[in-house]
């Protein structure tokens, strides 16, 4: 994915200012930066979720496999199908069971037979590392799982539609340390099959799981490079100040 000249607003508030970025396929790219720097907004621009907020506006280009996500003839539904998303707070559908949640995207978006749905649901739950824990309670409401399980259910739900890119907006910030670890392991496992872009305010997390890291400040990308470079020899003073904990 490639972003060029991206600007985003909430009403009059100019959140992203001329952002350029790149995310290579089958790698993990982390976005770090202090609260309010625009990293969540940026990730939501990548699959056109930003425009779901009242008063939100975007200009610029987001290229996905060479086509502009914001071109007038691009269907946001298709964009979101191919670029999945996991949110900060686990949001399983309360009226659906564990299995129904896992296959929700398939069920509501395509015509598949019952057995096929189940198969794909199981595969998604396995990929999300949740299968062993929930295989005996697939018919229970998704909301009855623990927070960490709910979040992995949301990852499974996103994976079930087999997206090429998975966007994760602070997926572990509402979870306890052991659930966070599970999510991080999951990201490690997933990067062979999908491109992961993850927003995090936890620098250690970025250092642990990301191949590439970009540092954002006040709606601008300050620096983007290999994770190692960002955390050891950053080019920009502000990046250094941030990763060494001098602010933020």
């Amino acid at each position, binding site marked *: 994915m490639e972003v060029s000249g991206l600007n985003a607003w909430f009403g009059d508030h100019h959140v992203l200012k001329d952002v350029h970025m790149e995310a290579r396929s089958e790698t993990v790219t982390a976005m770090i930066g202090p609260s309010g720097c625009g990293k969540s907004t940026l990730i939501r621009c990548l699959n056109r*979720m930003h425009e779901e907020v009242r008063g939100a506006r975007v200009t610029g280009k987001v290229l996905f496999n060479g086509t502009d996500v914001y071109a007038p003839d691009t269907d946001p539904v298709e*964009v979101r199908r191919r670029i999945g998303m996991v949110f900060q707070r686990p949001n399983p559908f309360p009226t659906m069971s564990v299995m129904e949640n896992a296959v929700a*995207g398939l069920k509501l*978006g395509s015509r598949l037979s019952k057995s096929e749905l189940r198969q794909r649901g199981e595969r998604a739950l396995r990929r999300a590392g949740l299968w062993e824990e929930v295989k005996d309670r697939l018919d229970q*409401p998704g909301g009855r799982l623990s927070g960490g399980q709910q979040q992995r259910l949301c990852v499974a739900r996103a994976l079930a*539609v087999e997206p090429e890119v998975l966007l994760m907006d602070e997926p572990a910030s509402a979870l306890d340390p052991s659930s966070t670890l599970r999510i991080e392991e999951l990201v490690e496992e997933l990067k062979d099959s999908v491109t992961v872009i993850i927003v995090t305010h936890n620098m250690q997390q970025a250092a642990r799981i990301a191949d590439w890291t970009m540092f954002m400040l006040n709606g601008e990308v300050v620096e983007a490079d290999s994770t190692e470079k960002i955390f050891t020899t950053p080019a920009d003073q502000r990046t250094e100040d941030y990763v060494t904990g001098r602010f933020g």
Partner: protein
Amino acid sequence: MSGVAAPAPAFTRLGTGVSAARKMKDRAFTVGLWVCGGLAMLPLLFIATYVIERGLKALSINFFLKTPGIPGQPGGGIAEAFVGTAIIVGIMAVIAVPLGLLTAVYLSEYGRGWFASTVRFVAEILLSTPSIVAGAFIWAVVVVRLGAFSGFAAALALCVLVWPIITRATEEVLRLVPQELREGALALGVPRWKVILRVVIPTAGAGIFTAIMLAMARGLGETAPVLLTALGNSFMTTNAFGPMDSLSLRVYVDAQSSYALDNVTAWAGAFCLLIIVLGLSIGARVIAARQLRRTR
């Protein structure tokens, strides 16, 4: 640990801090609140026992199966009123429920700008419109135009009253559905209409169901708009385009009758209305509570 001991805090005995006067005041207010709560229930209890006592006496098989027959003669019933109410409320539901739901979905999921605010404002005004005005309006535009009183016109008049109730109540419960659920579904590449239909509405299901049931109960009990539009009828009819009887109308007519027998019938009709309306309200609440428990 080193040998430094923290100084023991000086606790006072429990219960010594509150004066007797304050305890008395507290008790007096608690009792006062209980009494107020009880007083609020009194009217319902009084109405219910009175209506049940009077109404039960007049209930018989004939009451449900026969039409009024000759005035002043025993053995008549109000079967035509039950049928009329069922037809009028049925037509009302068929029109008002989809209309109300669609309006609510529009207001909550799509409505922005001046048009949505106008629709919401109109619904608000309709909500406080006296029911007789709705009846008079439908009388003027439907009954006069078609040249006949009809159950259909009554259903339309009730729609005017019930549509805003369904709309506003449903909009409220749709708004309670967390935005994250909509976003979660949209992010899966599900088209918006399907997100609304399969995620948002089921999540608000119990609340929507309650709203519809309470609106039905309201439509069932209305008298004035039905009087102006359906007129009433002592004979059994299923023709919705002619004059029709309804339960509330029958109660109104029989209560004014100079025959004591009719007055008794009115009580029985009132009893039936009360039971149906209570049944709808209680049923709605029970089902809503059950669904809520299932999803938690």
